[in-house]
């Protein structure tokens, strides 16, 4: 996480672009309403990482869901159970299932990989700083408010 340069002000899409450039694989963020049983899903095909996220929720929640899936990517987590593969086939009917390499969905934290991704997503969001550096009063507020800490 120390190697990540977080965009200021924080922008999860810019962060996704940064991770994609580092991996040499494009990341596509795809909003979708009512994902069944999950609110986010990472599908790795042979050429692209597709991140589906629930769109029927607020923007900060969408941002966190995307961060969770990006955390799976950053942690190199392994593929998920079969029901998600079935869902992937529904979401991507035109993609040959053989080309789908990894799938992970955000639905509870019963497994170690889900806990790890959720924790990393929360820590990344905590490390992100607001864009207060443009004016002296903004910088004063950020410094005296001890932003980034308790």
């Amino acid at each position, binding site marked *: 996480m120390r190697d990540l340069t977080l965009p200021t002000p924080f922008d999860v899409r810019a962060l996704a672009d940064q991770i994609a450039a580092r991996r040499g694989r494009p990341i596509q963020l795809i909003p979708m309403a009512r994902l069944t049983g999950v609110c986010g899903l990472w599908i790795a095909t042979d050429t692209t990482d597709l991140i589906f996220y629930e769109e*029927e929720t*607020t923007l900060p929640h969408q941002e966190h869901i995307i961060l969770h899936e990006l955390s799976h990517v950053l942690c190199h987590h392994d593929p998920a159970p079969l029901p998600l593969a079935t869902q992937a086939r529904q979401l991507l009917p035109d993609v040959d299932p053989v080309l789908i390499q990894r799938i992970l969905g955000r639905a509870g934290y019963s497994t170690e990989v889900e806990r790890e991704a959720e924790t990393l997503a929360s820590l990344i969001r905590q490390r992100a700083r607001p864009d207060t550096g443009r004016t002296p009063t903004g910088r*004063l507020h950020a410094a*005296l408010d001890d932003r980034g*800490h*308790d």
Partner: protein
Amino acid sequence: MIEYAPPILAWALFLSRRRDRDPARRYIRWVLLGLAVSLTALSPAVYAAVGELSGVRHLARLIGHGSMLFAAWAGQEFMIRITGSGRGARWQGWWAGGAFAVLCLLFARAPELLPQSPGVLEYCVVYLAGQAPALGAVIHFGLRYARQADGVALRVGLRLVVVGTVAAVLYLVNKVALTAASRFDFSYPAGHTLLVSKVLPAAAHLLVLVGATLPATLGWLQRYLLYQRLGPLWRALYRAEPAIALDPPGTPDLLRFKQLRLHLYRRVIEIRDGLLALQPYREPHILATARERAIQAGLHGRQLHATMEAAALVAALRSRAAGASTASAHVVIAGGDDLDSDTAFLSQVARAYRRQHT
């Protein structure tokens, strides 16, 4: 014991701020460190102990003065970082360091530090001159940015720092006047009053300490209250959908003092996860009825939406408990567009939920 309150407060405020790579925040920590060391060295017990251990009766005074020079220099460096004006930064460091070197030489000549001792007037003048540029910069920029600041905590905090710094300057000028009166044999009774000799320096320290830490303290308090306020809503959703919690409930909310920013963030995300899980149980007609009632009650804006959201939530929790999901065609997403506004919105929902639930 009252004389130990300022050093204890200074150490508590210094230790409450973690190390940071950001230079401005680092300088704030150094201001607090300088004040804490200075106040500790000048407290009666430490003063006496340092004198006894070193064999130099007033050595603690030199340590206290050196720490104060350091605090003033750090305050000036902080202002330079904030204003982006780096001109003369190195010169100011040499100025403060040079002043301390001269203080050490003068102290070696007259370690008793009595007003009539030779070199004490020069000692007081150098001590004042060593801090004057820094204190002047703090007063100048503090006043300017207190007028421009948009937050009440920052405005009030900066003004307290300015008033405290002015009090410090007055105290230093008074010390010079006292030693000058003794050297040149003129009468200056005002310099010996309790107000000038005791109240002024104590007030200066206290005002600077409180002012510099007020925005952080109020920010922490606001997060603490928001975390408490969201508790009942989070627990209701957790009972219905335990999978929303990254960690099961452990520490009672009232005792949650550390890492509040992270815990508050988790609470907002988990509430949003819970609300999402309840979407299949939301009934559109509940929202319409709640809206009518809220408008009749004179509610509008975010409060209206929060009350509607709470009504929809209460009904959805009941439907879920009864196992009756609905196939709602359209879902209205109510909330803020960024983290702060969404947190504020959810706190209003939590308040409305408590009212409607009870």
